């Protein structure tokens, strides 16, 4: 099994004709993801060529991508100025799951978009996230397919390349994954740690969950509390940003220590206090996962 995406995922790519959109669409297709439609207003009727000569229909609207292409998921690669609009369009089209890769969307746009997505009953992953991959089944987003392999580990992370680092080490150690979820580095994200934990909790094949957090906010603290109250299997944690100074944004718009809250110490303590062992270095994640699986 897997969470969020699998063999039944039928993806519409919003912004398929852009530089990032077209590159990653081919990557997703090569991984075996079912890309059923592209959406670029004004380019409806054209087609997109897949890596093996497949032809993906391009529509002007998400509504057509759903009605004619049968999409149940969308992934957003459109530029920041238009990305919130694309998310609203996706939510309005009836897809269940929306993955927003775009970085740099104004946060007030996202406040409105999150409310809209909730009103429509859809699930949003991101924005400013690497997406999600269920090894051997489907990838939606930009996580490199070659670093994952099927197995019993669920991964939830706020970052991109740090996730790749950790997942690549897991894979190298023979520890495959059910699904790796990048929830994104923005202050306002759709699916958060607890949401992803809930999904993993109802996935029979996930035996241990890796939580890769970073400074800023209290999402990890809430995840820790949720784990100790609800999770029936082990989790291990890592927090980036122990050396980050307060008040400075560390790349991600969400990675900022405000006053005395959102520090790495606070989050690591919350993990430990709730029975989640914390890796001191990325390399230790592998060790902790091995211990959890053999316990």
């Amino acid at each position, binding site marked *: 099994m897997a969470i969020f995406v699998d063999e039944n995922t039928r993806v519409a790519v919003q912004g398929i004709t852009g530089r990032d959109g077209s590159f990653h669409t081919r990557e997703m297709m090569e991984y075996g993801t079912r890309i059923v439609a592209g959406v670029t207003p004004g380019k409806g009727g054209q087609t997109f060529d897949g890596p093996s000569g497949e032809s993906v229909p391009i529509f002007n609207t998400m509504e057509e991508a759903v009605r004619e292409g049968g999409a149940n998921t969308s992934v957003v690669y459109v530029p920041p100025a238009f990305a919130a609009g694309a998310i609203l369009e996706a939510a309005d089209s009836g897809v269940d799951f929306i993955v927003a890769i775009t970085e740099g969307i*104004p946060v007030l746009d996202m406040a409105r978009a999150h409310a809209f997505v909730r009103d429509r009953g859809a699930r949003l992953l991101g924005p400013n996230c690497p997406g999600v991959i269920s090894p051997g089944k489907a990838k939606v987003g930009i*996580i490199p397919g070659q670093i994952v392999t099927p197995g019993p580990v669920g991964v939830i992370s706020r*970052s991109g390349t740090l996730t790749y680092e950790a997942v690549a080490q897991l894979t190298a150690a023979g520890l495959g994954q059910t699904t790796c979820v990048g929830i994104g580095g923005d202050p306002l994200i759709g699916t958060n740690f607890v949401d992803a934990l809930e999904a993993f909790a109802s996935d029979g094949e996930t035996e241990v969950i890796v939580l890769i957090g970073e400074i800023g906010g209290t999402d990890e603290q809430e995840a820790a509390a949720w784990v100790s109250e609800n999770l029936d299997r082990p989790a291990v944690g890592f927090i980036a940003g122990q*050396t*980050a100074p307060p008040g400075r*944004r560390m790349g991600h718009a969400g*990675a900022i220590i405000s006053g005395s809250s959102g520090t790495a110490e606070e989050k690591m303590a919350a993990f430990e206090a709730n029975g989640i062992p914390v890796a001191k270095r990325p390399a230790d994640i592998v060790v902790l996962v091995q211990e959890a699986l053999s316990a």
Partner: protein
Amino acid sequence: MNVHEYQAKEIFRAAGIPVPPGEVADTPERAEEIARGYGGTVVVKAQVHSGGRGKAGGVKLASTPEEARQHADAILGMEINGLTVNQVLVTPAEDIATESYVGILIDRKTQAPTFMVSAEGGIDIEQVAHTNPDAIRKLAVDPRYGMLPHQAYWLASTLYDDQALAKQASRIIAQLYDAFTSAGASMAEINPLISTDAGEVKAIDAKLSIDDNELFRKPSIAEYRDLSAEPWAETRAREADLSYVKLDGNVGCCVNGAGLAMATMDLVKFYGGEPANFLDIGGSSNPEKVVAALEIITSDPNVEVILFNIFGGITRCDDVANGIVAATQSIDIKPPIIIRLTGTNEELAIQILADAGFSAFTSMDEVVQRAVQMTKGN
């Protein structure tokens, strides 16, 4: 992006918030002239993107124009938290009866602009939150409806029992919400919001941070950026589309991805070293970005070694390696450079780098340990 107090006040004033007059001076003489224009006691306030201006001596009362000049002379050129004061705001002193706090920021939990107000103003709200959390009232504004009149009143009634004051504060809170959203802010603060003996409510300080992601569509706000108020390295990083934060150590770091960059800093510390900076070079491998990153890192005289940590996922490691080689050929770098690359085409990349004379690793732990050793003369 932070704007100066006087700029925030312009924005607040335009939204209708009662803000006392004020003018900016960049010389003591101009400060004296402004003070003379107002007559009476004035406040001379350092315009610098830093809290704690008062404690640092950057805010002074002056009862005569001459005194205003003297204070301005002392404050201009002063360093506050590492930032040089280039301008002072001169503003008439107000007669203060009470001081409150009104702030709004984007709250992660409610996913909405969220107000915090407290009748305990004029001091650090963080401190109030710790010592007397019940003194703070919070309200999340539903972005679908905006600020509703009864919500503004509900917040204002925490600040004042007097209904005439509460109604003024209620209006100001609604206006602050408008200023916040129309400026594309991520944080706005009036601290203190004062009431005067004459029964007027006014904003005598103003703080405003703009969401950088809004600037493309708010050109008039983007113009508020004061390049002289930020270190050269940050301006350069922004222009090159890099994220850079200077720290106090000596291991310069250049990493792709914010999370990995933080984890790299942490690992430097783990192995007993001190990171000199946070630097996220992003997903691109073009040589111009690598050049900019190297210029920025080497502008810090403390840097003794430069550590690259690149995870090639979508980015191809050989592209990055070529970028590094090209960049180092075009500029002259003093500190040694050591590099870790892993992922797509890593072997090819390591060969390219070795041919150019660079130490190249594939393990993050190894490269960080080596970098730390190098700062210790090993």
